[in-house]
């Protein structure tokens, strides 16, 4: 980031939430970069930025879409980069219909299931129709969504059957991605930004001018975002909008460019790479799905086709190496490498589906590991009530957090909804080890693995999760030792034999070595792999997470490298180890022009050395190292061999950066603005109010506030958004028990503008009660001009800011308070299954909230006044009369074979 000429921080508050990382923004600014902060609140990030632009929570796609429109209409895009490195020239299936044609929907939507059939979004196949995903017609959006398939692209793009696309280098064909993009954003204008975001034409002009002026051969712009983008019903599309803009401006794969995900936990990146997530196996291999992945061949073909370009074509080698790491000699070619040992998905199994399953008494046992769902999950009451249905609960934490004690002192005990004596849940609390009482690696937000050395042994009965799970595994295996039940074979055949220390605990470095992988046969048998390109699909290698291969190259823990300052190279590569292959900037082939020369001296990073016949520079080249800039290998080769010299996006199935996503997203190939699940504002762009493919939970314990145009919208007239403070950490488990931090931020508060304070009679430092259809909470009032009332569609919209670190209950917490997440409803992004917790509707009143039964009565009274039901906001098509009215033009070919002809809408578009 320090190399950027312009930094746009949007959907986050980097100075307060990533203060030490923010020094690099300051460094860039000191070197002359422009820093712009786009956020509903004026924060300390805004205070040191060149410009703060207040925005209505949830309207970011309008703003960025308008910048895209500005860039295209004024011909400000980086022509050479876009033509060579993106899919701008690629032709799309003629059956594709845009939201401009269908009033806010793309072709393929099934209102019955709420899912898209994504086949019409595909690239045009020179032989007719679209290029499917491998293994036949495109997987139905329903199934992709159910397994959160979008998230499986954490290490590259979705697969294509082959990469022989049709291109129009003149970009004039209306079926080119470029023309589709141009048309899609044509109505995203500065006027629309003013109407929907509350941003003046002048502020919009400042932003648009800053990013375009600071992009091109000689300059680069960088974006940084956090959960202000992800926590929406179409959060993945917020990020896609920025990605499109950055590709158009040539800011990907170059120093000072890119989009930085500012992640919020020490190893949240690592826990996605080596996923404690339902839909993934290590290295972004998907969990298999019943019916779709019944055999190993079906599985690997769907992950990456041998005919597509790039390194995902070798998915079979990664999958076999993983299965060999887990089941060792038992995994053989004859038994498909024990593929049948893997459990299968047949629907989503995310946090919120689990909550609902608990309430239905389907889930009996729950492990809570360093997380605090009683405070941190949206709709906290629902999360706590769900836990009261469990048979057994294991909480592993440092302190007695609210998730361990809700049965004793939770808000539902106080309100009388639950009685301790009636709760049948058996609770185990196991004290955990802190980060200094165990050795291991964290992966930080830029994919860098850093090893922590152990300082002391865990005190008392405290134990690391590594030791606990190793021991639990040993007990379970011992108890099953005599079993002949086939379902127990995967546990009994599991490789679970790590070298032990004197206390009988596994050596964490040996686990890292397994993750890295090793050769199993030949001269190098037993030696660690040094790169994932050494993995083979014939069982001669094993490795637990292919993207991490190399972290234990030469038998050395590369994550523990600590050369002061990272050594002399500009990439500071001698500190820690970055996946993949220790590359610090991904897709860095794009830092050179199509001829292999740096775009400019100022932005040189990786270039082609013609004499040496290889790519060289300041980083590990993210490209086949000897592939010359103008190479045109036979596309039939498939895989890495098929990458042409100007295909920098080596993990994409066609080697190009995707302005338009023909596959992989379930709610649209292009980001489109919809309103949040509950919003007092009408969508001025389309008759469709909310994202049609969002995941809804229409339940009595998860009601939504009426949206614009519905009866009762004035009962919950304000928008609320949640955020973090510097002095606290998420749900407070690691901060509210610490004296210094508790003293620095002792109390839950709400941030309101002076205008809203006057409207509702709120007094600074007094109390306020905030009411949503889920809960009512109290907070101290902070009246501050940092909150700006916005004029939206000619009407004033007030926003309320709420930090979410406090909770009620817990033992020995130094500070406690009502939990902001109790106000939140649960509605999810269908790509990621992440909840919308950055925009909701509420009312605010002066004074403290009632206690006991009276609190429930208050929430009910509001619900009744607004006449909310489970149907409120849970209608898929909000204006059927105006939507889905366009029959396809008569000249269109019939739907391709494989389209869902038996579905009512399938044959119409």
């Amino acid at each position, binding site marked *: 980031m320090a190399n950027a000429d312009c930094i746009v921080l949007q959907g986050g508050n980097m100075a307060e939430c990533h203060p030490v990382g923010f020094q690099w923004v300051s460094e860039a600014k000191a070197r002359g970069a422009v820093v712009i902060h786009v956020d509903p609140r004026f924060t300390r990030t805004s205070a040191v930025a060149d410009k703060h632009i207040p925005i209505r929570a949830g309207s970011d796609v309008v703003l960025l879409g308008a910048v895209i429109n500005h860039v295209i209409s004024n011909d400000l895009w980086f022509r050479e980069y876009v033509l060579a490195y993106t899919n701008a020239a690629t032709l799309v299936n003629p059956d594709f219909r845009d939201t401009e044609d269908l009033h806010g929907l793309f072709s393929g939507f099934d209102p019955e299931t709420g899912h898209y059939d994504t086949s019409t979004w595909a690239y045009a196949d020179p032989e007719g129709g679209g290029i499917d995903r491998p293994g036949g017609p495109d997987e139905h959006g329903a199934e992709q969504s159910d397994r959160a398939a979008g998230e499986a692209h954490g290490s590259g793009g979705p697969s294509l059957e082959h990469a022989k696309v049709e291109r129009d280098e003149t970009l004039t064909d209306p079926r080119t991605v470029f023309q589709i993009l141009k048309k899609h954003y044509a109505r995203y204008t500065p006027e629309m930004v003013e109407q929907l975001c509350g941003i003046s034409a002048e502020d919009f002009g400042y932003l648009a001018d800053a990013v375009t002026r600071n992009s091109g051969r000689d300059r680069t712009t960088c974006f940084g975002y956090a959960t202000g983008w992800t926590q929406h019903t179409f959060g993945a599309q917020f990020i896609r909008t920025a990605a499109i803009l950055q590709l158009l401006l040539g800011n990907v794969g170059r120093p000072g460019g890119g989009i930085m995900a500012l992640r919020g936990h020490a190893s949240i990146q690592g826990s996605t790479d080596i996923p404690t997530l*339902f839909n993934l196996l290590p290295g972004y291999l998907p969990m298999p799905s019943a019916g779709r992945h019944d055999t190993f061949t079906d599985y690997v073909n769907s992950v990456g086709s041998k005919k597509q370009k790039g390194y995902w074509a070798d998915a079979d080698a990664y999958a076999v190496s993983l299965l060999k790491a887990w089941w060792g000699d038992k995994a053989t070619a004859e038994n498909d490498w024990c593929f049948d040992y893997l459990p299968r998905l047949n629907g989503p199994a995310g946090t919120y589906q689990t909550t609902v399953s608990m309430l239905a008494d389907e889930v009996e046992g729950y492990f809570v590991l360093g997380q605090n769902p009683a405070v941190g999950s949206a709709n906290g009451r629902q999360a706590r009530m769900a836990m009261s249905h469990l048979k057994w609960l294991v909480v592993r934490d440092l302190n007695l957090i609210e998730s361990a004690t809700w049965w004793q002192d939770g808000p539902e005990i106080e309100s009388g909804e639950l009685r301790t004596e009636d709760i049948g849940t058996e609770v185990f609390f196991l004290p955990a080890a802190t980060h200094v009482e165990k050795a291991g690696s964290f992966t930080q937000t830029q994919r860098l693995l850093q090893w922590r050395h152990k300082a002391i042994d865990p005190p008392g009965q405290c134990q690391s999760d590594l030791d606990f799970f190793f021991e639990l595994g040993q007990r379970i295996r011992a108890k099953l030792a005599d079993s002949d039940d086939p379902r127990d074979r995967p546990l009994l055949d599991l490789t679970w034999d790590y070298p032990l220390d004197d206390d009988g605990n596994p050596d964490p470095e040996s686990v890292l070595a397994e993750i890295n992988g090793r050769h199993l046969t030949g001269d190098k048998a037993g030696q660690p792999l040094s790169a994932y390109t050494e993995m083979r699909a014939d069982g001669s290698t094993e490795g*637990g997470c292919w993207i991490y291969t190399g972290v234990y190259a030469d038998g050395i823990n590369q994550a523990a490298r600590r050369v002061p300052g990272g050594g002399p190279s500009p990439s500071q590569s001698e500190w820690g180890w970055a996946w993949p292959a220790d590359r610090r900037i991904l897709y860095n082939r794009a830092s050179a022009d199509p001829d292999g020369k740096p775009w400019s001296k100022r932005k040189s990073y990786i270039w082609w050395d013609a004499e040496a016949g290889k790519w060289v520079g300041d980083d590990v080249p993210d490209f086949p190292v000897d592939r010359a800039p103008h190479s045109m290998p036979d596309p039939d080769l498939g895989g890495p061999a098929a990458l042409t010299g100007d295909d920098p996006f080596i993990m994409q199935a066609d080697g190009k950066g995707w302005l338009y996503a023909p596959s992989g997203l379930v709610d649209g190939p292009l980001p489109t603005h919809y309103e949040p699940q509950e919003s007092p504002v009408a969508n001025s762009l389309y008759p469709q109010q909310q994202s049609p493919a969002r995941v809804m939970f229409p339940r009595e314990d998860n009601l939504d506030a009426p949206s614009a145009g519905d009866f009762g919208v004035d009962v919950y007239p304000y928008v609320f958004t949640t955020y973090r403070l510097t002095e606290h950490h998420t749900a407070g488990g690691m901060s509210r028990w610490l004296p210094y931090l508790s003293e620095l931020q002792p109390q839950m508060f709400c941030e309101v503008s002076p205008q809203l304070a006057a409207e509702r009679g709120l007094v600074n430092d007094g109390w306020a009660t905030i009411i949503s259809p889920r809960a009512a909470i109290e907070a101290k009032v902070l009246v501050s001009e940092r909150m700006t009332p916005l004029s939206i569609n000619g009407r004033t919209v007030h926003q309320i800011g709420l930090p979410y670190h406090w909770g009620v209950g817990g033992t020995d917490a130094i500070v406690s308070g009502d939990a902001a997440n109790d106000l939140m409803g649960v509605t999810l992004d269908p790509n990621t299954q992440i909840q919308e917790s950055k925009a909701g509707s509420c009312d605010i009143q002066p004074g403290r909230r009632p206690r006991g039964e009276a609190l429930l009565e208050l929430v009910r009274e509001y619900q009744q006044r607004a006449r909310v039901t489970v149907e409120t906001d849970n209608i898929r098509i909000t204006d059927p009369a105006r939507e889905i009215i366009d029959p396809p033009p008569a000249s269109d070919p019939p739907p391709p074979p494989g389209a869902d002809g038996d579905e009512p809408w399938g044959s119409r578009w």
Partner: protein
Amino acid sequence: MARRSFLQWPVLRQFRSGDVLGRGPAVTSPHTRALEPRTATADRVVQSICPYCAVGCGQKVYVSGEKVVQIEGDADSPISRGRLCPKGSASEQLVNAPGRQYQVRYRPPHGTQWQSLDRDTAIDMIADRFLETRRRTWQDTDESGSPLRRTWGVASLGGATLDNEENYLIKKLFTAAGAVQIENQARI
């Protein structure tokens, strides 16, 4: 106490020590002079990484008598260059928090208070619960006969604050056991 010599007069002290304005060594008390930072007397210093946000700042952990006595920023880190935010600076208190739990606790069904339990028994009981639930909630196939090979009865939440090696063992063990509802903060 030794007799004060002429040379210890404050003004002379200030000029002799170069602390002309009398805001530094010239005005420290013998007590202050005798103080040593915990970082200087520590038995050892261990390099670590901050456990809070995902920036990944370097930490130096100072240990005395097998207790963590101080945690400071690691100036060698090219990411943080020695800096820590309020949370990272307070992380010594995370290790030595006054409310931190050192013992296993157990709440039986319908119980109103915690009971104590030794760790060995607790892990054994958890293994039993895990296997019982797994047996009871096993799903071999879906309606159409495709294999599922899983339990819908055991779920897990957490991992974003854990090590890669820990997450790896959790995923490996639960997947082999057929548990699929494994989730963490990354989706929240």
